[in-house]
């Protein structure tokens, strides 16, 4: 068709005229004068038919065959285009949707007739614009009117081919625009301002298309191809806009925008790459589902917090003391005592954090109580105290803030009311990228469906509920027994170790000396396994089971930790008694020293005594710090060894012994291990708790923990990917993050309790640490206030800390909390109410639409009956058959060609639907 068109009318004048005609026609069609338009169209159709009868070439035939039904549909539509508005609507819709879909088809068409297209499209664009802004339109219309006169003549000559082209052109217009723009780009100077305007508009439209593409109800393929095309188009022609200098500027601007966008995207990528271990975690997530990944994310978060704690202690405590404080060997507290000097460098001693490690910045005892050190006048004791308080305060802040954020995120729907819908639409974990895990997930979803159905059935019967309840109670009872047993064992071991300590540690073997740590680690390792076995009795959903498991392990660890702390308290008391004795002896010793030295030389008695020889107190703070460090170390070692033996060695054995074993090791008995999310999370949390507890007495603890977390990140990532298999029941863990956080908060609170207790109630050692010589550790604040701040400040502070002021303040805070709590509760209630209302409305709507559909179907039937009675008595049987169908049949796509014959125009309920049904009448007639 197109070729034909070109060959017939290539003369410029005619072409222009014809295009004018088209412009007019289309523009008018859209804007106004619908009746007139229809009339004209009819005329046009008549002309077209005549022409088609007369001059149909071979090429045209070909073309027709190609275009097939599309053209037919078009023509049909033209027949009924009296419905101007609807038609316009449809045109717009098709213009949008047609753009990409027709690309391939149209490629052929576009090959030859670029010139023609160009012009026509320009005008078409103009028409569009006209539609948009009324004022411009009017003027152009006049012009059109002028041109129409010319056109009428020319039109006579013209074949209907051009006409047909017009019919199809709306679908093609995008492509044609592209083609046309290609032309233009070659010589952009030659563009008229209108064309430029048009081009700009096209570019804008493309941009808009790209933006709104996501929301379009198209298949993905189409979307992608459309997107690609539009982007290409933009790339090509965006720079071509503007003229001369302006054009260059515009091009530059566009280029810069593009560069900026690219930079932004790269920057985003860079930022993602900067998130430590992000790719690793994503990979794990794809293999094991989000519950395992949530552990690693938690680990990373913990690492971040520990980095900050480490920065605080390292930067404000350890480094200043090491750089500006008195050097090693200058004071008794900074020197290894004479008795230990020989073994102070032994590995065994250092491994136990004795010897030189004990007398270093790593521990509390090394710090001097000098008020200000170095040329900076760094207030060391104050800094030590504030850092200790600051780490805890910071931790509280971070944990609570994260909890609040998580709570906001997880404010979604309730899982109970639409159980099956939730399962149906939300149970897939889209982060899974591993076929095996996907299989597992698939299986778990199917089983969960089965289970849910069973549950639903059983919830009506509820005969088995007593058994379940009994089993759950039994399981809890067993767990209780287990907890009590482990608690007693630890208590027993601690008592024994105290006995050993009284005997002197050297008389006992390594096993006996490390009994407490060993037993604690072993119990912490094995009891969760037992709990796991017991929890199979309970038959909970895995997510709930995980929470129970976490709770139980939590209780176990807490019991262990507190037993340990109680033992430590006993030891502190022992040390303090020892300290009293030492203090007394010191005075005696000093007196004897002076007595001995005074007669000889009265000027410099202390010079003769080396600091290593000075007797010293036991320094319980360092002892506490050492205990915690040892605990952390042994805990870490246990974790790593379990990992290596329990996971890696097992995996290796299973993998390689399987070749020569009498049963299938991989599928059967030992199998590969699964990643134990709950145990690992709790291990992490308790580890952190110990850090918080011990960090005050051993500033090296955060550093150690950072090291440990770093190593375990790599080690566990590797171990998971290399020796674990995906869990059999993969489930989403999006909700459990806040559960971890809550536990962390509890642990934080419980671990700060003993630390604060010791700080507040027990006086510091007299000869070691930054607070030596003070009656309480927090006296350092008072001291600073008195000496470093102006007098009025300390006065204000003392007023402020007056109970008379503090108590009302506390009361106010409590009131505020109560108020906020109650308001949030009322909001929550309102939310629930709203949700209920929404549901009700939904149901109502559903009912209503159902009713409307029914009514429409009935109407249709009536209409059909009426019709058949009127004109079509010949085929009553057929209509009857048809009449039964529409209720079940899917609505026919809208095709807006209303019969000229009078189908009753009664459109109740939802007009479109009924219309869709009503227009089936003509098809009936055709039978």
């Amino acid at each position, binding site marked *: 068709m197109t070729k034909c068109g070109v060959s017939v009318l290539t003369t410029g004048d005619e072409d222009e005229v014809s295009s004018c005609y088209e412009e007019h026609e289309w523009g008018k069609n859209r804007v106004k004068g619908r009746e007139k338009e229809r009339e004209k169209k009819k005329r046009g159709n008549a002309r077209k038919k005549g022409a088609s009868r007369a001059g149909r070439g071979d090429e045209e035939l070909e073309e027709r065959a190609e275009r097939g039904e599309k053209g037919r549909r078009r023509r049909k539509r033209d027949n009924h285009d009296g419905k101007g508005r609807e038609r316009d609507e449809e045109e717009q819709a098709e213009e949008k949707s047609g753009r990409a879909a027709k690309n391939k088809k149209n490629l052929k068409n576009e090959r030859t007739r670029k010139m023609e297209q160009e012009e026509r499209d320009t005008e078409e664009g103009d028409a569009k614009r006209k539609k948009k802004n009324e004022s411009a339109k009017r003027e152009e219309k006049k012009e059109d009117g002028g041109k129409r006169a010319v056109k009428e003549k020319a039109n006579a000559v013209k074949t209907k081919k051009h006409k047909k082209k017009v019919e199809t052109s709306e679908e093609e217009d995008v492509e044609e625009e592209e083609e046309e723009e290609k032309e233009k780009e070659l010589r952009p100077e030659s563009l008229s301002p209108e064309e430029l305007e048009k081009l700009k508009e096209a570019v804008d439209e493309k941009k808009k298309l790209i933006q709104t593409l996501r929301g379009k109800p198209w298949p993905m393929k189409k979307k992608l191809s459309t997107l690609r095309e539009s982007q290409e188009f933009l790339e090509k022609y965006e720079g071509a806009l503007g003229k001369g200098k302006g054009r260059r500027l515009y091009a530059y601007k566009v280029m810069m925008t593009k560069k900026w966008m690219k930079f932004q995207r790269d920057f985003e990528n860079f930022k993602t790459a900067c998130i430590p271990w992000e790719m690793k975690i994503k990979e794990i997530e794809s293999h094991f589902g989000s519950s395992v990944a949530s552990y690693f994310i938690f680990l990373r978060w913990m690492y971040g917090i520990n980095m900050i704690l480490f920065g605080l202690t390292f930067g404000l405590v350890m480094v200043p003391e090491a750089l500006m404080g008195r050097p090693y060997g200058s004071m008794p507290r900074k020197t290894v005592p004479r008795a230990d000097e020989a073994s102070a460098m032994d590995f065994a001693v250092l491994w136990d954090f004795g010897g030189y490690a004990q007398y270093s910045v790593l521990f509390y005892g090394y710090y001097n109580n000098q008020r200000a050190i170095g040329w900076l006048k760094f207030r060391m004791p104050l800094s030590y105290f504030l850092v200790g308080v600051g780490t805890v305060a910071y931790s509280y802040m971070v944990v609570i803030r994260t909890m609040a954020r998580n709570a906001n995120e997880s404010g979604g729907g309730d899982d109970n009311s639409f159980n099956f819908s939730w399962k149906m639409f939300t149970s897939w974990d889209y982060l899974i990228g591993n076929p095996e895990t996907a299989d597992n997930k698939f299986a778990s979803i199917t089983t969960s469906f089965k289970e849910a159905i069973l549950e639903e059935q059983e919830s009506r019967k509820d005969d088995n509920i007593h058994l379940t309840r009994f089993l759950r109670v039994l399981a809890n009872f067993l767990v209780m027994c*287990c907890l009590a047993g*482990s608690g007693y*064992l630890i208590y*027993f*071991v601690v008592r*024994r170790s105290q006995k050993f300590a009284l005997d002197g540690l050297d008389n006992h*073997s390594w*096993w*006996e000396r490390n*009994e407490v740590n*060993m*037993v604690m680690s*072993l*119990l912490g*390792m*094995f*009891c969760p*396994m*037992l709990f*796991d*076995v017991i929890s199979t009795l309970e038959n909970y959903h895995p997510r709930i089971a995980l929470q129970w498991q976490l709770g139980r392990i939590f209780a176990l660890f807490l019991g262990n930790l507190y037993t340990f702390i109680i033992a430590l308290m006993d030891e502190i008391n022992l040390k303090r008694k020892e300290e009293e004795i030492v203090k007394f002896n010191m005075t005696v010793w000093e007196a004897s020293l002076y007595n001995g030295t005074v007669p000889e030389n009265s000027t410099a008695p202390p010079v003769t005594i080396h600091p290593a020889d000075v007797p010293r107190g036991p320094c319980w703070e360092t002892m506490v710090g050492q205990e915690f460090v040892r605990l952390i170390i042994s805990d870490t070692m246990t974790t790593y060894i379990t990992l290596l033996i329990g996971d890696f060695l097992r995996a290796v054995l299973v993998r390689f012994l*399987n070749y020569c074993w*009498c*049963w*299938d090791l*991989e*599928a*059967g*008995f030992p199998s590969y291990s699964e990643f134990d999310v709950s145990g690992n999370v709790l291990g992490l949390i308790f580890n952190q708790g110990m850090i918080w507890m011990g960090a005050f007495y051993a500033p090296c603890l955060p550093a150690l923990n950072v090291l440990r977390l770093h190593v375990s990140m790599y080690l566990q990532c590797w171990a998971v990917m290399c020796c674990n298999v995906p869990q059999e029941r993969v489930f989403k863990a999006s909700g459990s993050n806040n559960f971890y956080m809550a536990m962390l908060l509890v642990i934080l609170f419980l671990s700060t309790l003993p630390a604060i207790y010791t700080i507040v109630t027990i006086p510091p050692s007299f000869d070691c640490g930054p607070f030596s010589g003070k009656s309480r550790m927090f006296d350092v604040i008072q001291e600073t206030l008195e000496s470093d701040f102006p007098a009025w400040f300390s006065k204000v502070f003392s007023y402020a800390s007056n109970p008379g002021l503090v108590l009302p303040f506390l009361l106010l805070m409590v009131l505020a909390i109560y108020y906020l709590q109650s308001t949030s509760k009322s909001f929550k209630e309102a939310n629930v109410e709203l949700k209920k209302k929404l549901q009700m409305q939904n149901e109502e709507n559903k009912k209503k639409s159902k009713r409307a559909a029914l009514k429409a179907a009935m109407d249709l039937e009536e209409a059909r009956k009426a019709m058949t009675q009127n004109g079509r008595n010949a085929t009553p049987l057929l209509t009857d058959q048809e009449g039964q169908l529409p209720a079940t049949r899917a609505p026919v796509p809208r095709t807006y060609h209303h019969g000229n014959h009078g189908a009753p125009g009664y459109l109740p309920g939802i007009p479109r639907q009924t219309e869709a049904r009503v227009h089936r009448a003509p098809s009936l007639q055709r039978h």
Partner: protein
Amino acid sequence: MVSPAIALAFLPLVVTLIIRYRYYFVLFYRAFLVRVWQDCATGLSREERAFQYVLTNATPGDPDSILEAFDQWCSKVEFISNIGPKKGKILDRLLMEQSPMTVLELGAHCGYSAVRMARCLPLGARLYSVEMDQRNATIAEKVIRLAGFDDDTLIVSPSDEVIPRLRSDYGLETVDFVFMDHWKKCYLPDLQLLEGSGLLGKGSMILADNVLFPGAPNFLRYVRKSGLYEWRIHQATLEYIRGIRDGMAELVYQGIKGGRAG
């Protein structure tokens, strides 16, 4: 010297292991300890003991009662890895659906599965049982006769020797149904032999027992990869012991695709 407290700390581990793997312990006890003890005490083999029990407790000529007696003995007295009643039902169903005319059984053991299959076969079908061990074979023969079947052939020979000779010696063209319950290691070589000898026609079904426990991983891997079969695994538990998961692999031979079709 390890202190008792540390030893006590291992108690949870021991308890966990015992609870988690209790079925395996039970299996070990029943299938091994009891067997060794009875072997020493009676001087008869396990299969002979089972046969004696069946002889005294079952009605001759009634396959169902024989099977029931076997089940009784295996679940109450001692353990023999027969196919068992539960997995047997799957076998029965498949046979009913398939109604094969030629059935090959690899690993007759003491004839339980042979009786079970013979019961479900259509009229005129023939069952070839292969058993490697002479003593077991005699017992199987007796059991089969006791059940009143004589339309089957018991071949006493290792399966990998029998399969290539099936066509020449026994005049088999194709095998419609193969039941594998012999050494799990032999599943794969025997399957390949069957393929190689051309005994499998399109639609021939192969049922392999115990593919999960004790397990035949290589067999499963091969089946998955070869693409010659439509396969599925019937999940079940090990015969006569509840808690151990096991499965039967059902393969339907599809022939070599593509290559010959073109």
